[in-house]
C-alpha cells in the first residue's frame, strides 16, 4: 500500500469513527483492542460503561452496527452471543492493526476488566 492510500484510509477511518456516537465509538474501540477475543453482550456493556440493559444494546446499537458490517455477532446459544469486530472491514482492519501495534497498555486495561468479571 502506498503512503497515499495509507493516508486516505486513515482519513476515512477518522471520518467514520467521528460520525458514530459515543456508544458505537466505544464499542468499536474496545472490540478493536481486544481482537481476536470476542465478548458477550453483558461483558461488552460493562466494557464500555453502558448504563442501560444489555438487551437494549443488542436490539438497537449492535444490530445496526452488524447491519453495516462493522461487527460480527455469532449466536452460540439463543441467549449467548459472541460479539467481535469485523476484521475484514477495509477500515477497521487498520484500526485493529493500530491497536495491536500501539495499544498494548489499553488492551491490558480492557482485558483486566474482562478478567475481573470472570472471577
Amino acid at each position, binding site marked *: 500500500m502506498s503512503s497515499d492510500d495509507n493516508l486516505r484510509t486513515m482519513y476515512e477511518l477518522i*471520518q467514520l469513527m467521528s460520525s458514530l456516537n459515543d456508544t458505537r465509538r466505544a464499542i468499536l474501540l474496545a472490540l478493536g483492542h481486544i481482537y481476536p477475543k470476542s465478548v458477550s453482550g453483558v461483558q461488552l456493556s460493562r466494557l464500555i460503561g453502558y448504563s442501560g440493559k444489555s438487551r*437494549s*444494546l443488542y436490539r*438497537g446499537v449492535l444490530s445496526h452496527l452488524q447491519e453495516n458490517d462493522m461487527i460480527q455477532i455469532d449466536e452460540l446459544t439463543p441467549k449467548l452471543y459472541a460479539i467481535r469486530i469485523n476484521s475484514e472491514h477495509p477500515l477497521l482492519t487498520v484500526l485493529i492493526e493500530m491497536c495491536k501495534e500501539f495499544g498494548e497498555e489499553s488492551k491490558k486495561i480492557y482485558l483486566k476488566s474482562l478478567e475481573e468479571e470472570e472471577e
Partner: protein
Amino acid sequence: MDKLLNKARGLYIDRQRIALAALIAMYAASFILFYSNGIDSILKDPPIDWIPAGWAQGFEVVASFNTVGFFLAFSVMMFFYAFWHWAFMPSPAVTYTISILKGVFGQKSKITQSLGKRFRVYVSDTEFIDVKCRIREQESGEWFVYKLTSPIISSEKREDIALRHGMAVRNNRFTTWVAHDELHHRSILLAKAISLAS
C-alpha cells in the same frame, strides 16, 4: 439529547397520553351506546335445550348485532389511533431534522416532509435521499432513530464505498440506521459516498 428533541419527546409522551385517554373514553362511550338499547341477537332461538338457561342468555348478548357494531366501532378507533401513531411527529423534532438536513445539503436545498415521519432531500430533480424517522425504537427504547436511504447507485464499487462509509447496500441503495446525534455527521458521509459513487 438536543434541546429540541427533548421538547419533542415530552410533547410526544404528552400527546400519546391524551390519545390513549381519548381511546379509553371512546371505548367506554361506544360500549354504552351499543349495549344500552336492547340486544338484537343474531340467532333468534338460542339452543336452550343443551346449554343452561343463564349461559344461553349470555350467548345471546355475545352473538348479537350489538357486538358486531361494537367491534366495528372499536376497529375504527384502533385504526385512527394507529394512523395517528404512524403520522404524528412533534414539530420540534421536525424543526430539528430539517435544520440538520439543511445544514448538510445547503440552506437552499429542496426538502419535503410527508406523512409518516418521512423526509425527502432532493439531490437532483429525479434523485433523492429518503430520511425516515422512528420516534421510539420499540426493541431498544432508543429515541429518535433515523433511516437514511440513498438513490439507486449503479457504480460497481458500491459495496466497498458503502463499507468505507459505515453503510450497507440494500436493493442497490446505501442504507443505514443512525441515532439522532449521528444524523448530521452520517448524512455528510452519505452525501460524500453518493458523490464518490457517481
